């Protein structure tokens, strides 16, 4: 900031760090608000998922749905598969959908990215629904490939499990978000947040 002294010369005034931070926050209020929403949403949802109620009413049904959906998908490929609770039983290989194997946590992070972004609620809801469904389906594809690999190639199973699919989920999650922004948010007719 420049000020004039008695002689009329310009002099640079040093601002305190607190002032600078305050100014930065004021300039980036929308961004800070988005970060806060992202973090709070993620933390609250992760904590909520640890509760018994969520385990019984969300995670276990989701595990069963993942196992059932995967068995159904394998059936489409001509593999006889069944599921029992969260277990996928097949002639090719069998796996157990344990906690974290469903797409719940990835979905929460994705939803945090959707809800934190400053746009209208209609866009957010649309993105949340489509994104949740897309991640669930992608997770089914992931589980099915892993079931096949578990029965045929243990080494490749570990590679696919630890490296390939994790990258893929991150990449696909990012692309889904970009897709949501490009197709839904940026085409919004009026944006009061602009």
């Amino acid at each position, binding site marked *: 900031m420049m000020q004039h002294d008695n002689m009329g010369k310009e002099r640079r005034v040093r601002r305190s760090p607190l002032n600078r931070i305050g100014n930065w926050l004021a300039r980036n209020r929308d961004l800070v608000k988005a970060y806060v929403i*992202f973090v709070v949403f993620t933390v609250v949802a992760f904590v909520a998922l640890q509760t018994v109620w969520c385990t019984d009413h969300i995670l276990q049904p989701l595990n069963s749905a993942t196992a059932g959906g995967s068995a159904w998908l394998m059936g489409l490929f001509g593999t006889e598969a069944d599921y029992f609770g969260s277990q996928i*039983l097949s002639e090719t290989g*069998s796996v157990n959908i344990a906690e*974290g194997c469903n797409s719940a946590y990835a979905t929460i992070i994705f939803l945090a990215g959707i809800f934190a972004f400053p746009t209208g609620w209609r866009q957010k809801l649309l993105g949340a629904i489509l994104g949740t469904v897309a991640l669930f389906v992608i997770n089914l594809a992931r589980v099915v490939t892993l079931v096949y690999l578990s029965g045929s190639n243990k080494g490749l199973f570990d590679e696919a499990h630890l*490296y390939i699919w994790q990258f893929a*989920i991150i990449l696909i*999650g*990012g692309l889904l978000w970009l897709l949501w922004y490009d197709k839904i948010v940026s085409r919004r007719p009026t944006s009061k947040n602009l």
Partner: protein
Amino acid sequence: MLRKFVGFGRVWWPIVSLVGALMLPSTAAYCMEALFTIPGMAPGTQNFIDIRMYADHGNIDYYKSVSITSPTTHDEVMNTFINDLTIDHGFTASRRGENLIVVTGVLGSTGYQLTVSHEHEIAMGVGIAMQKADYPSGCRIFEFYTTAWTGGWTDGTQYLSINGTTVSALLQTSESILLDAELLASALSNAGFQVSRDGILVHIDWDDPVNAEKIGQQADVNFWTTGGGDNRGARMGMVGTCGSGPIPTLSEWAMILFSVLLLGLMTYYVIKRRRMAHSVAV
């Protein structure tokens, strides 16, 4: 200059986020794998017994997996492991009883318990080897399940036996897979295992003291069809509920990187929209 380079709103910002999100977990994962390499299970056949050893003391301190041709006796196998432990790896190992090797004095601690497991290939419809795996740590629950054969039920009679002794009643193949599971549970129970059954799943918990006594022994569960056509009928499979390994969609680090990626994208587009709004206003 640097501030310009790293400033928000640059076109390469999301690209860097994407590349970083892709590169970091792979680098980290490969480093971790290099640090904590555990030999993978060699595919076995009926002619091989896959022996696995695991010293459990909270962390993986020693792990070995070898394949020995089936004529090798149990004593030879145990002695091989003791020699391996003492001579090649500097452990103090002694044999206790038929199946247990106790390793003491490792890293200042005592009481390391070493479990030895035997595995061989599951041959569907012909024989099922009941595993003695204790890998990975803490995962000692195995479940058998029965499924209907794709070709449908056929005439004939099926038997269940453990270690050559027929322990089940005759099983008509026209019966249900649920009955198979009941008979399997009964067969295992008669063989001295503590078994529980939940529908078509038969559970054996190796942490149960009765079952734990049997660690190191091998039981072969035979299941075959006589008469009728083509050995078809109900099949049994086995799930190592933990042995298969949970398959998390995202690990902790991957979740962090996914969050960073989304925050990066969000930041880029918030600032882009802000600049667009500014330019429109100007």
